[in-house]
């Protein structure tokens, strides 16, 4: 009941969007964040990280969230991924008001529909590379055999099959991010959410990873929402959202404008 009241309150306070008008132009709008606020309480003070942020991402977009450190882009990403609850506002992912559901529902949704690549790859140390990739399958209740079989196929796709039996920490940063991508792809997600995946990589490894992500975006229509600091990566994007101080200052999806931005770098 409290949850319902909270939701109603949020809708009244922050958002006019009800999730029904999901089409915009030719492609379907699949991620909608409306009037999102996020405050953090630090001791006696309240820090506002997101200040009335609204974005829309269409199916098949390669959306880059850019901006200086501390501008709130990772926080927005975590809110869309269902890890960080907004103070106010609504978030619809694939027509689902994700903050109107239970924790377990969000856990299921993340597992089933969203592939996640963190900045620093996190692993279960006791498991091999292929077992780590199979984790989303295990979480989903699939058998060990089926999950690992699928993990092997996914490893082939990212060109890392020969490392299957290794421990993830035995691999380089670039290799680890490739297998993090493989893990994100395991359950054939509709979305990939990536939080500065190339942040800790050298340039060559970063390019390789971006090429792979782009390939899955283009060939399988997986919608990508990625946080980055690197302006060179604008060339991969179909949408660029720029944030400064908790607000959206730029939201471009015109290829010509993006091309101009690429040339600037």
């Amino acid at each position, binding site marked *: 009941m409290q949850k319902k009241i909270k939701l109603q309150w949020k809708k009244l306070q922050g958002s006019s969007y009800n999730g029904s008008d999901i089409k915009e132009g030719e492609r379907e709008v699949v991620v909608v964040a409306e009037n999102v606020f996020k405050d953090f309480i630090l001791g006696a003070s309240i820090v506002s990280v997101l200040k009335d942020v609204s974005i829309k991402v269409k199916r098949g977009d390669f959306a880059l969230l850019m901006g200086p450190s501390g501008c709130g882009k990772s926080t927005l990403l975590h809110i869309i991924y269902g890890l960080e609850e907004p103070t106010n506002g609504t978030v619809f992912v694939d027509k689902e008001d994700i903050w109107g559901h239970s924790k377990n529902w969000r*856990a299921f949704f993340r597992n*089933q529909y969203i592939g996640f690549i*963190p900045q620093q790859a*996190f*692993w*279960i*140390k006791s498991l091999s590379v292929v077992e780590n990739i199979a984790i989303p399958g*295990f979480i989903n209740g699939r*058998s060990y055999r089926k999950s690992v079989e*699928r993990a092997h196929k996914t490893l082939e796709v990212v060109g890392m099959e020969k490392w299957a039996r290794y421990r993830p920490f035995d691999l380089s940063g670039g290799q680890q991010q490739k297998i993090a991508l493989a893990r994100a792809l395991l359950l054939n997600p509709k979305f990939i959410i990536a939080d500065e995946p190339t942040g800790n990589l050298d340039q060559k490894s970063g390019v390789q990873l971006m090429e792979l992500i782009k390939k899955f975006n283009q060939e399988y229509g997986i919608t990508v929402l990625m946080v980055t600091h690197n302006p060179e990566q604008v060339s991969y994007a179909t949408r660029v959202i720029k944030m400064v101080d908790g607000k959206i200052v730029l939201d471009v999806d015109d290829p010509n404008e993006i091309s101009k931005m690429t040339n600037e770098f």
Partner: protein
Amino acid sequence: MNFNPFSKFIQKNKNRPKEKWKEVHMGMGFLMILYISLKNLKAGKIRSVLTIGGVALGIGVITFLLSMGFGVQKLIVEEVTKNNPLDIIDVSNGNLDSVIYLNEESIDKIKKIDGVGKVEKKVNVGGKIILGESQTDAVVFGVTEGFIELAKITYQSKENKFSNGENRAIISSRLSDLLGLKSVDETIGKKITYNIAVNQDISSKFSKDKKFENSETEIVGVVKSDAIVIYLPFEVVKNSFEVDLAQEGKVQINNMEKYGFAKQSLEQMGFVTESVNDLIKDIDSFFNTVRAILAVFGIIIMSISVMGMLNTLSISLLQRTKEIGILKALGTKRLDIFKMFILEAILISFIGGIIGFLGGYGIALLVNKVLIFFGQKVGVELYYFVYVPNYFSGLIAGFIFFLGVITGIMPATRASGIHALEALRYE
């Protein structure tokens, strides 16, 4: 590029209504959680071995001590009950304030008590046994065949047996030796002479003590015993020496539920009762005290093991905080994280418990065997005294499960409650 390993999966999931997510999101299977828990234990080998070793040591010490305690208790009870069945109450004519004898009248009364089966009597008088030049003092028992049976007196015999109406005797092996008879074969069939002195108390026929000399009987059986005794049929003693009152008897209870009532009724009649049950109660009470002391030692040792387990699981939780974070971020349910940690604690406890139980029992058996071996060397007869009753095995199994759950609850609750992002940021 010709890749799509998930085409079947895509087709299958395309039309799946999201509302039915609960049916789909089963969470991790038990075997998967077990697998990850085992892998985690294997990954921290030294830590796991030390923790499991701590539990094994605790359970091992408890099993070692208690298996010997149970064994010694069982051995004593078996020895006590070997010739004294649990359904027999010994009655005697009691104390000086209330002297009562077993006669036809009192035996009839006893038989009418609810739950009582057979009643058999025994009288004892002092006597002298003579065989040729050899003679020795002995206790002469006048008993019925039924008494021999209830007292589980086993004797070696030939064709003639001890019988109520026949003038035949059973003597102890010690008496046989004193009479100069070298073997059972030589003893059985021998005719002996005896003199007895009958106290006036055990006869209603005379008022003074009487002596009877040069009575004869045939030995038909030898009972292995160090006591110097001879058993004659009660009828013979009664007919020959006018003894008609017995000082002692054995009352068999045919319904053990009525045991207490029968015993109480006998005591109300004025008899002093004695039963192996009373002795067993005393033995049990003693061993219960011993076990309680051992249990205290065990609890102290187990407390140390529990602290070790808690320490290991807490460190494991800290070391794996990021793992918990990524598992949660990827969609693991709180309950599955909880299960993972609790299962790890149960595994530690279970593996340690099994090793400890088998080890403790094995060492106790080994100690027992070594003692028997050295006992034989120095000519002391020792027995197997290690025993674990089934209920104790069940208790140990229950205890190690309980231990696992108790020690696992705190870290499991903490792990399942950690926020995914906080866990991922943990340093």
